[in-house]
């Protein structure tokens, strides 16, 4: 497995360089995982991407580097300590660096000779491919996906110049991933929503949720989907509810700050029983927090947001593949139970590129919008049923009158203050929880059955925990295992109760400061975690970091 960092200032073209590189590596057979570490600015500062690739499955990042591509001197200063002894630092010869690992190429002169100073990234791409023993075949095609036609030829030449400027350093590893997908979590989520029949998406731009909106917008015309940029998040969620009420499968997406604005309407979806999917691509809060970075600190907020009591579902996303299937399930569950479904992603999931097997939409069946209702007799939108779910007619689609109300209402949807009707309607809505619980999925179990120490985590902790369990078990086979929750609320308990009995110690691993999943587990089951590994600096914990914390004694506290 190899790990290369490409770093520079915002605006230097890191994103394009990495997009071409990761595509080339994946098409060569590697499993590739790219993490993006960007500052909240458009120019300057220090940004980098970590491109990790290998012939076995790569699904998380590492801070231990085999190579650094430095588009500025800051990158060398910040990261050379992470570089292995036989690693390389590829940079322009104008950058002064007193490090024996430096491979200086006169990129600036080459670029000038080629007639455009902005092709340094392609020179670097060519050089990296050579360093890792990759052929240059296919570079033209890979470049064309990220570079405008009029700059294509010059970038092709630049890649060749870079390729010729260095010698091979690392052997090519033969992988089987050429036919896999290379996709970001947000892109996978957008495809899942489209596959589920999304017709209306309303949102207000907010990092790191905007890539989801962009991924939907670029396909909207072809799909027959309306993507509407709302005036604020309150409008965005009320629009999604209005569209869903009128029969268009609808979703809104945001990050924590926008989600905070949406909470009253979340309750509207709950009491009015309008299916709704809300995506929260989490970032560190509170308030503005760290806008372009990652955290898992909205869990307890999501499960309790909005006044009053109503059934809701909270799902989380564990990796790029999960983003596709979880969002499809979210639409199915929202429709079947006529409730709001909150999907928790985060910057790490959303912005990273994942190598995954072909996505199969047929794996998830999504309930059709609305129900066939008897066209004779009066229609009761909130007819009291055993399951708590009432047949849903779509207004304007048939002769029925469909009335929904944010006030407490009777079965016909008319406002009421009757004590009896209030209790009847609360009970009807809350009864849905039994049906919901039966549909939710148990956490993923990672490790072997003879474990001793059990990690618990949720969402994007899947990749770090999977790697950590592997690393820790290398020395002590079978000692460590992990449960990583995808569906988080209502909390699936069967596997947790089962595995926790066997564990001598339970260690909570989360990307937040308070251990929110551990708190939810304690509240729901009484199970108390013995130790916690928490990170809240905005940078995703890696598998290696978890293992190191264990070796340092985190499980002996």
């Amino acid at each position, binding site marked *: 497995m190899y790990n290369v960092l490409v770093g520079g200032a915002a605006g230097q073209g890191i994103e394009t360089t990495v997009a071409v590189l990761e595509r080339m590596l994946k098409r060569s057979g590697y499993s590739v995982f790219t993490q993006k570490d960007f500052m909240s600015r458009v120019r300057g500062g220090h940004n980098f991407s970590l491109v990790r690739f290998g012939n076995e499955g790569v699904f998380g990042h590492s801070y231990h580097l085999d190579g650094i591509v430095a588009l500025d001197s800051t990158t060398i200063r910040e990261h050379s300590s992470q570089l292995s002894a036989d690693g390389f630092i590829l940079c322009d010869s104008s950058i002064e660096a007193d490090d024996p690992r430096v491979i200086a190429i006169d990129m600036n002169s080459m670029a000038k000779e080629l007639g455009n100073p902005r092709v340094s990234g392609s020179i670097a791409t060519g050089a990296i491919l050579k360093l890792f023993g990759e052929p240059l075949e296919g570079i033209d095609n890979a470049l064309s996906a990220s570079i405008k036609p009029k700059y294509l030829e010059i970038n092709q030449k630049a890649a060749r110049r870079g390729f010729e400027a260095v010698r091979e350093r690392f052997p090519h590893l033969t992988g089987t991933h050429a036919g896999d*997908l*290379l996709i970001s979590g947000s892109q996978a989520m957008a*495809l899942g929503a489209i596959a589920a029949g999304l017709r209306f998406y309303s949102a207000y731009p907010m990092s790191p949720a905007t890539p989801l909106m962009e991924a939907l917008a670029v396909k909207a015309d072809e799909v*027959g989907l309306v993507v509407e940029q709302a005036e604020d998040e309150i*409008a965005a969620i009320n629009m999604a509810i209005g569209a869903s009420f*009128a029969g*268009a499968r609808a979703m809104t997406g945001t990050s924590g700050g926008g989600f905070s604005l949406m909470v009253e309407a979340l309750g*509207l979806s709950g009491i009015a029983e309008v299916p709704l999917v809300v995506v929260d691509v989490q970032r560190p809060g509170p308030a503005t927090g760290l806008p372009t970075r990652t955290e898992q600190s909205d869990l307890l907020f999501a499960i309790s947001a909005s006044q009053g009591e109503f059934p809701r579902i909270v799902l989380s996303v564990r990796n790029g593949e999960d983003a596709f299937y979880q969002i499809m399930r979210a639409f199915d569950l929202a429709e079947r139970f006529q409730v709001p479904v909150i999907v928790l992603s985060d910057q790490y999931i959303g912005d990273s590129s994942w190598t995954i097997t072909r996505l199969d939409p047929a794996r998830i069946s999504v309930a059709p919008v609305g129900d066939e209702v008897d066209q004779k007799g009066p229609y009761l939108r909130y007819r009291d049923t055993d399951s708590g779910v009432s047949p849903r007619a779509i207004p304007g689609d048939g002769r029925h009158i469909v009335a929904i109300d944010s006030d407490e209402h009777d079965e016909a949807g008319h406002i009421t203050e009757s004590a009896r009707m209030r209790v009847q309607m609360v009970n009807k809505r809350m009864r849905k929880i039994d049906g919901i619980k039966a549909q939710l999925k148990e956490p993923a179990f990672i490790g072997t059955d003879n474990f001793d120490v059990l990690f618990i985590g949720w969402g994007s902790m899947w990749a770090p925990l999977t790697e950590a369990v592997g690393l820790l078990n290398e020395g002590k086979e079978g000692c460590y295992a992990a449960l990583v929750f995808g569906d988080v609320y209502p909390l699936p308990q069967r596997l947790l109760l089962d595995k926790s009995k066997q564990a001598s110690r339970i260690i909570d691993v989360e990307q937040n400061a308070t251990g929110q999943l551990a708190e939810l587990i304690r509240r729901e089951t009484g199970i108390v975690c013995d130790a916690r590994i928490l990170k809240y600096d905005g940078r995703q914990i890696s598998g290696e970091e978890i293992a190191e914390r264990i070796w340092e004694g985190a499980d002996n506290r």
Partner: protein
Amino acid sequence: MSAQADSVREEEFHCASETAWCPGCGNFSILACLKEALEGLGLEPSQVLLAAGIGQAAKIPQYLNANAFCGLHGRALPAAEAAKIANEHLTVVVSTGDGDSYGEGAGHFIHAIRRNVNLAHFVHDNQIYGLTKGQASPTSMLGIKTDVQVDGNIADPLNPLAIAIAAGAGFVARGFVGHHDQLVKLMKEAISYEGYALVDILQPCVSFNKLNTYAWYNERVYDLGSSYDPSDRMAALAVASEFGERIPLGILYKAKRVPFHERNETLKSGPPLFKRTTDPALVDRFIEEYV
């Protein structure tokens, strides 16, 4: 249409609920006019969506037999816009109060004008908050005393019609509950207009607004009349700024604008959005793009 057919139609929109309004409330007139307007346009209740927020005015969908979206305070417009986007065959009417429209939902008001989804927005403008028992509204006049504005209202009233015209609305009108026939006509024209249409409806609040009474309005309102040209935007702005000794009624401004459905690529052609499905082959092709 025969008189008999008329009465049958009227029955269709009639809903026999007891109302929560005070005797003498202007909302009764608005309800009667709305019923008459919908019936007069020959609409079926199942093809009409009434949307409202929260407030005394916002209870109007409860008392009419039509599809109803009784949402959150201030948020009727975005929900109604999206419902219309989802099903262009629905006739969408937002009928709700001045607090809903110009206070809590003021931002949505401006952006609904920009978006220009084809719907009619009827604002029951009684210049006071009724359901919360008599606080100043965004259109309350300076100096009006309430339990909250104990020294008199010190915030200048906003001028919704001037705002709407300045923001680019294509249909801006004012009605008065005391002028029944004109109000019905304005409602019908607003519903028939292709795009966002605002009718600000002056309506006394007999319980909490002792200043802007029927008599107060009657002394001031006048009909713009047939000599007025509603296509002149600058003239419309001048007329809209008139609110004091004389208050104009009628269509202040009307112009053709391209509605949302003709601007959005997806909606330009094809069946209503909610009737569409996604071709699985298209999804497969999108997935292939990531190989």
